[in-house]
């Protein structure tokens, strides 16, 4: 029994059949409890008022926007090294979810920034990095769509993902060098000193857990969809042969 058994599409579908309802339940439970707790049962911030509550959407989506890319990078590496089709399809499935998370982070940030900073957009390194990430997700998704052959598309996008990751780090550094920031420091860190106050902390953790589960659930659903779409393609091709 090894992890690679799940690279078998049949096994993958069978296993996700069992676990997917649990992931759905966990996602809904965490998000409903976390968001309601966050929106209605936490006090307003003494300077920002009620706008602070957008943090329950902004921080988790920003976190997942980056981690989705990380997951795509790992999946691309697995595809390039071991050539498991489920891995390539999972990377393909994660991209639209990742771009949605990036968009949520950018939009909630703009909605929050308009009253607090006085403008929805600033060329701050963090904001710019996210805009860069957004553009790169678009390129990645379009490249998947442009190539018809699945293996070719998987190879090309994997190579793009590897090179893009290097340039993502490089761009992040370049943005820091280029302009000083307006964005506050990270809201969460393992070092407890810099964390936000406990009243906001616990619902935020729940929301983050909810977003992580949401991401996993959506990627599993989309990967299953991609596997089935591929099977259909194969079946249609076989029908034509006969």
């Amino acid at each position: 029994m090894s992890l690679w058994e799940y690279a078998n599409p049949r096994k993958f579908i069978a296993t996700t059949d069992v676990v997917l309802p649990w992931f759905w339940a966990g996602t809904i439970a965490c998000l409903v409890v976390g968001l309601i707790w966050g929106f209605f049962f936490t006090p307003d911030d003494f300077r920002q008022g009620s706008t602070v509550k957008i943090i329950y959407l902004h921080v988790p989506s920003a976190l997942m926007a980056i981690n989705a890319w990380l997951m795509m990078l790992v999946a691309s590496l697995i595809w390039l090294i071991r050539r498991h089709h489920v891995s390539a399809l999972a990377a393909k499935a994660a991209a639209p979810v990742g771009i949605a998370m990036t968009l949520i982070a950018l939009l909630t940030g703009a909605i929050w920034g308009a009253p607090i900073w006085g403008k929805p957009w600033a060329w701050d390194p963090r904001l710019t990095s996210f805009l860069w990430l957004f553009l790169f997700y678009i390129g990645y998704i379009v490249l998947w769509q442009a190539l018809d052959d699945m293996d070719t598309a998987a190879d090309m996008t994997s190579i793009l993902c590897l090179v893009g990751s290097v340039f993502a780090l490089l761009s992040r550094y370049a943005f820091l060098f280029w302009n000083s920031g307006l964005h506050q420091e990270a809201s969460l860190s393992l070092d407890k000193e810099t964390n936000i106050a406990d009243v906001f902390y616990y619902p935020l953790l729940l929301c983050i857990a909810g977003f992580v589960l949401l991401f996993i659930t959506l990627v599993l659903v989309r990967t299953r969809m991609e596997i089935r779409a591929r099977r259909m393609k194969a079946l249609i091709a076989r029908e034509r042969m006969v």
Partner: protein
Amino acid sequence: MIAILTRDLRLAIRSGGGFGLSLMFFLIVVVLTPFAVGPEPQILSPIAGGILWLGAMLACLLSLDRIFALDYEDGSLDLLATAPIPMEGIVTVKALAHWLTTGLPLTLAAPAFGLLLDLPFSAFGLLTLSLALGTPALSMIGTFGAALTVGIKRGGLLLSLLVLPLYVPTLIFGAEVVRRGIEGLSIAPALMMLAGITAGSIALIPFAAAAAIRVGLR
């Protein structure tokens, strides 16, 4: 390898297009800028370095899809793939040919175009230096983008979409050299980062681009 280089250079010069076209495009971008922002020197002067870098970058982008597309269409890329030279070498030579026909002329022309934009005299040397250091990275990264889109019909727009985000660090550090030079700040960090990006691109990107070409020809 030298044979491929001379062949590509001859093709670029004789078939028309590539060589002069990007230079003309660069000139047009520079000429259009004052129409858009106004002719006053106090407006043009601070943005001249950035506009010149942006124009050079876009002009560079324009000729990228010719790197592999023509060779792919007439099948000579398949022949090159079976040649005794490794694909990494072919990719590097292609990038070098692209730089010699695009990056180098742009670098040499940039100071002359700087006059049109009231670029401060102190910045002429820095502009040439930063373009000379940065354009090889643009050619190299562009070759990678061209390799990714090699089999795609009408992949030009997709190519720009893929390559432009990758150009961002080069553009930032390149333009920063000129900006800091004009403001009298230390240019060493930006210059070193720019040189580092170019050196890193030349060292590593051929492997990625060659892998992409092999996939594209499969």
